[in-house]
């Protein structure tokens, strides 16, 4: 079943068209906008399925279609579409999760007056995200990358009348933009160094071995290879987008957006774009591994940042009381896992985890959305409770998601993908830090998810909102069920015994290995999951919280640590005290420079000019003008004297004339003038 690559743009185009239609729909046309959006997503899903089937025919091939965007100088700037298994599985995942969340939103956003706008933004996001995964050019990828950022901004700030949502939207855009600018620089550098931004273009694409060899053959400052430097800049973009430490601060705040948005953008797809980017340019990131004596490998940084993020996210998630914030920090932690996997060289494991995480985290967020919807937008876990009997379907699917995230062995996808990552970390020769962080995060994940589930679903309902909750309508529960199926079933596509996904992604037929590859590691991780679940149950499930005012058992036990974790380790405060203050200072300084210094210079030049003018004026008035005034005064007097002889009577003039004539005659006749 073939799929023409030069028609690949149809897939992102469908949702984009739906977005355009949604933008032009008046406010009351909510049903129309939603219908168009869902129809477009269905179409995109079908096309994505065909694309995946086409990619599976020859998994090793990168099929691409390049075209010229415009000419710069004598060289064309080319963009392109790419179809390979990596892009294809992402396509299907984005389209499927997107479609389910669109459907869920029908129920969740039923009462919102701006529903048409909501589906417009969602479609915009879906279109950009689909474009991102099929881009064969870093530039095209970046364009889509920024557009998903825009959609994220718009959707986080969807309830813009709430100041927190507006601030969160701005924060998300700006923090990710820091990374984006690094990515832009890296891209520009790559373009300058290699002359192309196409990933695959025969031997000329920037991921082609000759180009990579050239990039890894140069060194820039400090012995760093050119490819390392570019790779790190690109990774900085991924750090911003995927909420990696230290640019993770925007992701928890992004939970101000509607819950379907959190599920789609800030859990399943957009935040994974960073992981996807690193996987996409993996040959470039790994190019420096082949060179000996390099001070720093790009992937080492990736692994370390991933490990820190995995641990940090899991730690902070333990002490959050907001249902969505717990899930947000969990997302950060899981994205850290993926980065860690990329860093230690297991990019297929990273993508495996990305896919698995997309399904189960979307499931968890939608479950949370169902809870929030039922509980009248109450999302503080201390004010919920007792929902298990009231919302059985939601509870069951949420539990599936929770176990998949916690990595409960054998049945759930999260276990298999996490196991693959830990195994790769174990064999990584550089450092044991990623493995340690990964294992610690396994324990913490199981623990905080148990805490979350117990607080929300068990015990007595602690407010009227929780007590009055009813199961959500089918339009919301059916997506939950579908996602739950995927959250379990997907794991079996990538087990060591049948590494179908890995084979497909790499394009090589991988050997089947025993299900338990390294018994010690597996035992340890299963044990840690058990401890985490057990501890969570011991602290929160055995004796559920009785009232909303009751203090958390851990807060009682270790108040200082708890306070630090609940305060997100103060990263936001550190930023406010450093970057924020520095920016404000620079702004004040720049403004002052203008107002006082430059304007002062201009004013003093003007004052100098005015002084010279005054001098000149004095000289004029006292010297020249006085002389002229005097002379003209005399002239005026003389004129006045003469004018007195002008009587105005014609006869007197005539008389004078006659007298003069007579005098002349007399003078002549007396011989005058001779």
């Amino acid at each position, binding site marked *: 079943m073939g799929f023409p690559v030069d028609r690949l743009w149809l897939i992102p185009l469908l949702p984009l068209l739906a977005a355009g239609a949604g933008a032009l729909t008046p406010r009351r046309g909510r049903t129309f906008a939603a219908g168009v959006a869902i129809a477009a997503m269905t179409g995109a899903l079908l096309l994505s399925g065909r694309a995946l089937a086409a990619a599976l025919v020859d998994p090793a091939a990168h099929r691409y279609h390049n075209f010229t965007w415009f000419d710069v100088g004598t060289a064309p700037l080319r963009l392109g579409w790419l179809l390979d298994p990596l892009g294809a599985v992402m396509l299907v995942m984005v389209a499927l999760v997107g479609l389910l969340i669109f459907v869920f939103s029908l129920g969740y956003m039923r009462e919102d007056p701006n529903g048409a706008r909501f589906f417009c933004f969602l479609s915009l996001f879906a279109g950009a995200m689909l474009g991102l995964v099929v881009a064969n050019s870093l530039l095209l990828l970046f364009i889509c990358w920024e557009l998903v950022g825009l959609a994220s901004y718009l959707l986080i700030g969807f309830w813009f009348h709430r100041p927190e949502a507006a601030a969160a939207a701005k924060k998300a855009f700006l923090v990710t933009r820091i990374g984006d600018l690094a990515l832009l620089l890296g891209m520009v550098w790559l373009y300058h160094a290699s002359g192309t931004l196409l990933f695959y273009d025969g031997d000329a694409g920037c991921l082609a071995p000759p180009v990579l060899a050239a990039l890894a053959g140069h060194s820039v400052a400090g012995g760093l290879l050119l490819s390392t430097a570019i790779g790190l800049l690109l990774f900085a973009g991924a750090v911003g987008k995927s909420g990696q430490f230290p640019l993770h601060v925007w992701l928890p705040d992004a939970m101000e957006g509607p819950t379907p948005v959190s599920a789609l953008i800030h859990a399943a797809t957009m935040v994974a774009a960073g992981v996807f980017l690193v996987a996409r340019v993996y040959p470039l990131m790994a190019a420096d591994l082949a060179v000996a004596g390099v001070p720093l490998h790009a992937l080492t940084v990736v692994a370390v940042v991933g490990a820190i993020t995995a641990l940090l996210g899991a730690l902070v998630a333990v002490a959050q009381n907001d249902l969505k914030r717990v899930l947000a920090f969990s997302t950060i932690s899981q994205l850290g896992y993926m980065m860690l996997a990329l860093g230690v060289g297991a990019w297929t494991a990273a993508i495996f985890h990305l896919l698995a995480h997309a399904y189960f985290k979307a499931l968890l967020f939608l479950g949370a959305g169902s809870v929030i919807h039922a509980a009248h937008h109450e999302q503080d876990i201390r004010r919920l409770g007792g929902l298990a009997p009231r919302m059985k379907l939601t509870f069951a699917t949420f539990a599936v998601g929770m176990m998949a995230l916690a990595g409960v062995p054998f049945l759930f996808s999260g276990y298999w993908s996490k196991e693959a990552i830990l195994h790769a970390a174990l064999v990584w020769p550089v450092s044991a830090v990623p493995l340690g962080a990964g294992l610690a995060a396994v324990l913490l994940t199981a623990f905080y998810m148990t805490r979350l589930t117990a607080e929300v679903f068990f015990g007595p309902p602690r407010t009227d909102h929780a007590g009055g909750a009813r199961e959500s309508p089918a339009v919301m529960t059916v997506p939950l069920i579908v996602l739950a199926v995927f959250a379990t079933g997907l794991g079996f596509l990538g087990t060591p015994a049948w590494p179908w996904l890995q084979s497909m992604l790499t394009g090589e037929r991988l050997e089947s290995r025993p299900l338990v590859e390294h018994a010690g590691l597996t035992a340890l991780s299963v044990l840690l999951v058990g401890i985490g679940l057990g501890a969570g149950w011991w602290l929160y499930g055995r004796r559920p919280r009785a009232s909303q005012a009751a203090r958390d058992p851990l807060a009682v036990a270790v108040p200082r640590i708890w306070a630090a974790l609940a305060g997100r380790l103060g990263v936001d405060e550190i930023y406010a005290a450093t970057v924020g203050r520095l920016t404000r200072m620079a702004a004040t300084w720049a403004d002052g420079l203008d107002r006082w210094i430059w304007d002062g210079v201009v004013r003093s030049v003007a004052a100098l000019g005015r002084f010279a003018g005054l001098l000149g004026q004095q000289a004029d008035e006292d010297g020249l003008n006085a002389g002229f005034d005097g002379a003209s005064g005399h002239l005026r007097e003389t004129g006045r004297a003469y004018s007195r002889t002008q009587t*105005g009577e014609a006869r007197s003039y005539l008389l004078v004339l006659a007298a003069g004539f007579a005098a002349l005659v007399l003078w002549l006749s007396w011989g005058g003038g001779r």
Partner: protein
Amino acid sequence: MSPLAICLLISCGLFGVGLAGALCRGNAILVLLGIELMLNAANLNFVAFWRFGPSPSTATGVVFVLFGIAVAAAEAAVGLALVIALYRHQRSVRLAEAVRLRG
């Protein structure tokens, strides 16, 4: 007395009458008349000097006089126009009242 002297005496008288008229009359038209008289006195002189001069055969004197008459006619036209303008301006032609040019 030679005929020339007689002619000159007549023209002298004519000129005197014209000058006196121009100087003494208050009416602008009469002043114009006086001026005409003075002009004609001059014309008479031309004719007399030509008739009793060295070469009466050439017509020089008559030509001068014809020019003089033509100029006098033009002058009278301009003068009368001025008088009419003056009248329009001040509703009289008395020169004593026309003193606007006084400095």
